[in-house]
């Protein structure tokens, strides 16, 4: 006759095994659908070259030359001002969706921010499309400032430049983007870089919905020339919003597994202690 203890031990062992088996270890993928296959195998989506390689604490390409919305031409460094951290966004003006989402949310966060534009920080938006012109920059800038209710002399410049200069700046902040012939669109990550007043990368803000608090903190850190840590790397792309969804999923699953193991471990430990005590006393069976 098996004791209840050995039965229970077997049950617990099986449960423990089940809790640790990864979901993707199961065989049986009969779907031919590419998307399902990719999703189940954990491959990244077919978006090559869209990513952010964080270059925290490194200087940006200060010598890359740009033209701003007023037509003034100069090195990137000439738009930096002492004591003012910078919110830098890289977008392109013909962008169908993502850039607008990023900039709109940046505008929303700036409105809610306790910090004053032009006094506490400045904003730079750089076009990654060499075909964009200063005239388009001006039109775009006017629209955003109007929506913010700011005067037209506000400290937010829109820069355009040549392919070579744009690449130099993008590489220096680790902003990886590609041009897609089929859709005539750039595929790029959704991210806002926060630069220190001297032009080093201080913080990355990912996604299209920033927490105002995070933006404020990032700016304050940048002003003190501190380098922040990016806790969440959720990178979106122009085509699909899932360039890193696998990672995100893992994040949740890791959390769940830990929680499940903690609860399970606690209960098992309790039962082991209780059973051992009873078996020692000889009152169990």
């Amino acid at each position, binding site marked *: 006759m098996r004791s*209840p203890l050995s039965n229970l031990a077997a049950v617990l062992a099986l449960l423990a095994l089940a809790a640790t088996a990864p979901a993707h270890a199961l065989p*049986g993928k*009969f779907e031919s659908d590419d998307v399902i296959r990719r999703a189940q195998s954990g491959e990244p989506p077919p978006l090559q070259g869209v990513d952010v390689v964080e270059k925290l604490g490194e200087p940006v390409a200060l010598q890359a030359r740009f033209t701003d919305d007023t037509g003034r031409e100069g090195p990137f460094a000439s738009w930096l001002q002492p004591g003012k951290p910078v919110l830098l966004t890289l977008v392109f003006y013909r962008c169908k969706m993502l850039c607008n989402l990023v900039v709109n949310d940046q505008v929303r966060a700036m409105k809610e921010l306790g910090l004053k534009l032009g006094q506490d920080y400045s904003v730079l938006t750089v076009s990654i499309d060499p075909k964009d012109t200063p005239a388009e920059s001006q039109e775009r800038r006017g629209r955003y400032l109007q929506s913010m209710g700011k005067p037209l002399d506000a400290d937010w410049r829109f820069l355009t430049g040549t392919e070579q200069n744009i690449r130099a700046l993008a590489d220096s902040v680790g902003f990886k983007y590609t041009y897609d012939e089929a859709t005539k669109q750039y595929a790029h990550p959704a991210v806002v870089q926060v630069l220190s007043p001297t032009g080093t990368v201080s913080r990355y803000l990912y996604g299209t919905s920033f927490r105002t608090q995070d933006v404020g903190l990032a700016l304050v850190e940048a002003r003190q020339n501190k380098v922040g840590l990016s806790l969440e790397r959720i990178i979106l792309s122009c085509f699909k919003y*899932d360039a890193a*969804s696998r990672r*995100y999923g893992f994040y*949740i699953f890791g959390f769940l597994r830990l929680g499940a193991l903690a609860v399970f471990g606690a209960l098992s430990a*309790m039962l082991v202690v209780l059973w051992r005590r009873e078996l020692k006393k000889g009152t*169990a*069976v």
Partner: protein
Amino acid sequence: MSLPVTGSTSPEAVAAHEGAHGDAHGEHAHPSYLTDGTTIKSWLLTVDHKRIGVMFLFFVLLFFLVGGIYALLVRIELLTPGPTIMDAMAYNRAFTLHGVVMVFLFMIPAIPAVFGNFMLPLMVGAKDVAFPRLNLLSLYIFLTGASLAIWGMLHGGADTGWTFYTPYSTQTTTTLAPILFGVFITGFSSIVTGLNFIVTVHTMRAPGITWFKLPLFVWAIYATSIIQVLATPVIGLLLLLVIGENVFNFGMFDPARGGDPVLFQHLFWFYSHPAVYIMVLPTFGVMSEIVSAFSRKNIFGYRAVAYSSIGIAFVGFFAWGHHMFVSGQSTFDGAIFSVLSMLVGVFTAIKVFNWVGTVYRGAVDFKTPFAYFCGFIYFTVFGGMTGIAVATMSLDVSWHDTYFVVAHFHFIMVGGTVMGFLAALHYWFPKMFGKTYHDGWGLVSAALIILGFNFTFIPQFLLGNSGMPRRYYEYPARFQALHVASTAGATVLALGLVIVAIYLIHSLVAGKRAAANPWNSKGYEWMTASPPPTHNFVGPQPVYPEEPHFYVDPKKAEAPDAV
């Protein structure tokens, strides 16, 4: 009162003693738990497991009433193909409220929190549960969560159904957050109760009660408690995530932002499938007690019944995917879940055969609890067989989200949990309140409930099989006859329940005093006065028999002058 010092405290001895010394003035040397302090405060601040059980009984019955009223409203609405008494939104809210109240506020706490609390310490020969204050806390946690959930339902109410499926639940304009948060809070009550029972069974057993001398109800509650402790945290976390998604836009279940709506279903059913065993395992325990008490016979295959409770608790954790055959999970996964689900049927069948084996050649005393036992056996077998059918992937693809599924789980939940609850209520009513009820009315109402129940849900099997989807407000006219039949059945069911309420309340107020052990049961909980004194036992510890449910002494049975 001091018991005769024969060293034996058989129920009969107690009963005889009660008869000899029981007085009409209710002045006991050892007052029962009911009369030991009669102020409101003495009830609200009590740590006596019996009073806590009685308070749980009151609230659980209240929620049963609320959920039942909404069930009737839903059935009335479905009398005609178009709008009948409410608009589509009100209908959605009504069935959501019915589901949430019945599942989270009635069925999950019903038997463990009421009868588990009241009987478990008596059955293991303890003065109380291991953590009496925690026990009281679990009642207040439950009430807090329940009040919040009910408040949320009355102020707006959700329209998502009790499963809160994403993406709808993250976008709905109805007020979901308070309901989710309320259910989240009641989860803690469930966990605390479960922990309390596990520790009680391990550490509070009287000398001489080993694991294989425990009444089967205790085994069932023990298995249930393990499920409660392991599974409830999962839904707790999940409900918080849905609140976050709904209120703060987390994006956890939104594919557009890297989330996964199917993840919600996995997490939800990882709790909610074991939850059906939280609902039905205690019923199995109740039925094991009742079948041997009313067949006057030892339970057949004691160990098989005990282990199958643990088996169901275990296998129940690996069957959740059978709710998701059409969610896009791979066919391989579906097949695995399908097979694992059928294992539950194996364990349940072991129990059913053992119960039937217990009745076989027993001296059946056909009282109200036994009537519910008969109804229960029929519903469990019928509902269980349809369960095997819906666990078959190929069939479920057609039946998924139709009335067939609704009828299946109502057969198990009403036929299982509600039968068990009513059976337990009738079996232990004299124990808990020391009053008798009219058994004739009991049998009549049991018959009405069982009949009404069949008339409610058998038409729904037919409806589901011909394609009536669940949760729909309107339906083609050709379905009307079956819907009307279903509503008629629900009315009969409600009538039966109303009769139960009337005669039980009447017997509480003006019933005759019950004998200490009116059924002549050999259950350990009857080895003390009814209602029990505050500390459960007076005088020496009862002497427990060689095995539980000890109706026939095998040694005596071999003798020619056997009873």
